[in-house]
């Protein structure tokens, strides 16, 4: 599936609710849980996976059997630290793990290993762009933790699959800097783009790779103190978050306008009815009794390790967009489309550098290539047309060796079967005839064979030229260079 389409084109609701917000300011904070793309789980060596038969990727450790102990997955730490580096966090040189104690069947030990006292990354943030307005959203911290099992709620029982239990999770907590549903979603889109770019997570929302707890509050304009906040837990689509926030902020404002107070509580988004509803949770359950995880020593990171990881970071989307505009002279739109997917951006650069034709390269990648990939449901990695081949094809068009329409035919062949454009052009006899002598002859032939049409043209009928052009193309079996042919006809018809 082509990833070139930006979020605005597919996920934005057709009608965004107009929130009447002249008297209130909203503050939105997000706790984003991201499943990291590691090969094994966070604290045990069970394979990470997405879809498997229940309870086939489990071991005594992630099942919480007696006597088991956690062992940290280095790759998870590396990925989380890299996110911190990308967003400008301070990386804690000494980072520790803590136990969060609460009973729930999807937590196999009834203890979740997380980080409370000394998380891996502190501070940092992401700049978002909403309707041309740039805003910096601050991040409070990023920490490492383990995921919970999957529960299936039946009528009288709950069924549990521990395949997901213990998967490496990164939790990123923002400051309540977002002031609208649009800003919240813009933040998530920017974060997702960064995470996919750097190979941190596939961020496949359908597979539950990204889950958010969404906190929101409102306060009257002019008030410095944040209002009472409510929490929406475990939201896993950007569209759902947008709609839920629209409703919740409206609800809070209406409550306050009517003289009421907002209750601090956890609510859930009920999509069918389009409203948030309170969840009945026991207040006493919330004392998690955090304490240092005695089974895990601290992670101490030295400068060499951190700088080594920093060197592995890719150029981020925003920087790449700016560079494309500057170095290749591309308009913002092109830069946006080309950088939406890192592999496509890399492909474009290879083509552009080889052909030297920047805009043409952009047009071909954005146009024919993305179209073809979309039709076949393929990713660029599987494409049989190499950047060199596309660059060579572009060169042929620029040299007027083939017409644009002939080039499209060659492109399709290259896309489906690979190959060399020059060889294909020869094989199919698609080379344009650009020899002016030849073309003059063909023009004379066409005019001689159609004297009436020639008269019509001299009488002022432009359309007659088109007919004669068609004849020239027929005589040349499509190989005549259309521009030269048109020119030759006009000359000869005078």
């Amino acid at each position, binding site marked *: 599936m082509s990833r070139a389409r930006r979020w605005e084109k597919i996920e934005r609701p057709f009608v965004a609710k107009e929130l009447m917000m002249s008297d209130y300011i909203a503050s939105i904070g997000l706790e984003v849980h991201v499943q990291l793309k590691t090969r094994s789980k966070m604290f045990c060596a069970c394979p990470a996976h997405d879809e498997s038969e229940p309870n086939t990727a489990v071991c*005594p450790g992630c*099942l*919480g*059997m*007696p*006597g*088991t*102990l*956690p*062992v*940290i997955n280095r790759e998870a730490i590396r990925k989380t630290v890299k996110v911190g580096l990308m967003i400008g966090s301070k990386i804690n040189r000494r980072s520790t793990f803590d*136990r969060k*104690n609460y*009973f729930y*069947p999807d937590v*196999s*030990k*009834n*203890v979740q290993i997380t980080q409370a006292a000394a998380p891996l990354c502190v501070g940092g943030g992401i700049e978002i762009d909403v309707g041309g307005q740039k805003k910096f959203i601050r991040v409070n911290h990023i920490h490492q933790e383990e995921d919970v099992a999957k529960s299936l709620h039946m009528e*009288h029982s*709950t069924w*549990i699959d521990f395949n997901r239990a213990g998967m490496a999770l990164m939790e990123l907590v923002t400051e309540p800097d977002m002031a609208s549903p649009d800003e919240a979603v813009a933040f998530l889109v920017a974060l997702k783009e960064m995470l996919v770019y750097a190979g941190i997570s596939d961020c496949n929302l359908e597979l539950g790779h990204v889950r958010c707890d969404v906190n929101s509050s409102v306060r009257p304009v002019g008030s410095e103190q944040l209002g009472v906040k409510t929490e929406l837990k475990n939201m896993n689509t950007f569209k759902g978050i947008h709609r839920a926030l629209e409703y919740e902020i409206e609800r809070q404002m209406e409550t306050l306008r009517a003289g009421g107070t907002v209750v601090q509580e956890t609510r859930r988004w009920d999509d069918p009815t389009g409203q948030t509803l309170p969840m009945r949770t026991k207040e006493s359950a919330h*004392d998690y*009794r955090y*304490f240092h995880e*005695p*089974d*895990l*020593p601290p992670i101490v990171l030295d400068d060499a390790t951190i700088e080594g990881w920093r060197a592995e970071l890719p150029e981020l989307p925003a920087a790449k967009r700016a560079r494309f505009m500057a170095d290749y002279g591309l308009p913002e739109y092109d830069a946006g489309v080309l950088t939406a997917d890192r592999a496509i951006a890399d492909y474009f650069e290879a083509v552009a550098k080889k052909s030297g034709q920047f805009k043409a390269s952009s047009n071909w990648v954005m146009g024919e290539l993305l179209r073809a990939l979309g039709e076949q449901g393929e990713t660029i990695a599987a494409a049989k047309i190499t950047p060199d081949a596309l660059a060579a094809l572009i060169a042929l068009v620029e040299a007027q060796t083939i017409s644009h329409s002939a080039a499209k035919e060659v492109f399709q062949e290259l896309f489906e079967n690979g190959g060399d454009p020059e060889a294909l052009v020869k094989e199919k006899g698609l080379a344009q005839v650009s020899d002016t002598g030849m073309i003059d002859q063909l023009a004379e032939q066409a005019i001689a064979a159609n004297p009436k049409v020639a008269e019509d043209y001299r009488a002022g009928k432009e359309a007659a030229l088109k007919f004669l052009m068609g004849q020239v193309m027929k005589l040349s079996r499509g190989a005549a260079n259309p521009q030269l042919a048109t020119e030759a006809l006009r000359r000869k018809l005078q």
Partner: protein
Amino acid sequence: MSGSPVDWGVSEAADALARKEVSAVELAQALLARADKLEPQLNALTWRDSEAVLTAARAADEARAGGDSRPLLGVPVAVKDVLSVAGQPCTAGSKILQGYVAPFDATAIARLRAAGCIFIARTNTDEFAMGGSTETSVYGPTRNPWDVARVPGGSSGGSAAAVAARLAPAALATDSSGSIRQPAAFCGVTGFKPSYGRVSRFGCVALASSLDQVGPMARSVADAAAIYQAMAGHDARDSTTSARPVGDVLAAVRAAKDLCGLKLGVPAEFFMPELDAGVAQRVRAAVDECRALGAQIVEVSLPHTAYGMADYFVLSAAEASSNLARYDGVRYGFRADADELGDMYDQTRGQGFGAEVKRRLLVGTYVLCRGAAEEYYRRAQQVRTRIRRDFEQAFAACDAIAGPVTLTAAFPLGARRDDPVSMYRGDSLTATANLAGLCALSVPCGFTAEGLPVGLQILAPAFHDELALRIGAAYQQATAWHESRPPMGED
């Protein structure tokens, strides 16, 4: 060769097996027969499967016939019922783990298995290793082979009684505040708590993660050292194990002959008012024996000794409250009937845990709560630092520390049942070693006037396990207390 096969220690049994004077099957049979005879009175074992044991023994004999000459091949070892042995039940003496069969080996077990040992039986323990008398087990109390009206000590009372009564030449056990050393002292056997991080805790039912250690019990230091050597060392599955090399401890132990050049510190605070006079006398005599062996005896001070047990209690209860949260009837073990999840949790744990476990879980949960954690839990962590510093200072003036293991000899069954704190106080002399992560050895050093065993404790700095064992070995070269046998089964 002393007595019959049941009397052999680890080295003697290993030698006899190597020389093919006895087969592993014959040795196992002799021990199983003795268990059949003594268990009705002793109740040291929670599980034994003769078929499985003899199958393993036969395999050992076949291996030896094929040229396998591993030193511990065919040597039987008993296992405290908190260590996972693949295919065996692991109940931690609790109703809540009834029916649970471990699907994997603890690392300590795997290493002994790789050394050729046979696991002959599982031994009784206080429920979840919480106790000092082996009276809280769901299997009922174990008795002391020296006096069946008395406790064997705890929580590793089953292992101590089994070794003392000659149901096995050695046993594995665990020590969080004295659970190896105290029963070793009460039963007249040798028990060793390795330095924290020396033996993997993977596969050991966790009580207090920052305090627990797995260790050997046997009838001599040399035997305990042999078992320790086979188990000790870094384990990738336990992130708290040390990467430091273990060294050839067994060789050092075998070569030990005197204590010349050793500075032995005796802490004044260990000889506290509550220390029984008979015990004190025996321990002081043992210290004199060390002096006669060439040790220089120096007085040292461990000012916070009296706070050790309370400190241990707060920290271990807190960790235990978290470690035991997994016992909820969801994935294994006992599950109470209930139609609703919350009820299922509450009833399973309410019915599955005994009174002492409940007491500790309530204390542990409370001391981690908002509003209590700062004053109880964090303070206890700070006191722990002071206790560690006490030892650092003391070890600047001596190489190792000697003193009593327990305040009294074995007490009568039921004597401390109604007063939990009196039970806890019994570990006053042993808990500080766990808090500081030191290694500590208990060796028999005589008897009280009532004929009850007394233990001598040797403490060495963390990762100086070889030193503690060498001292104990030298002591046992010069004395014969460890060779005494309890009257039980001596007919």
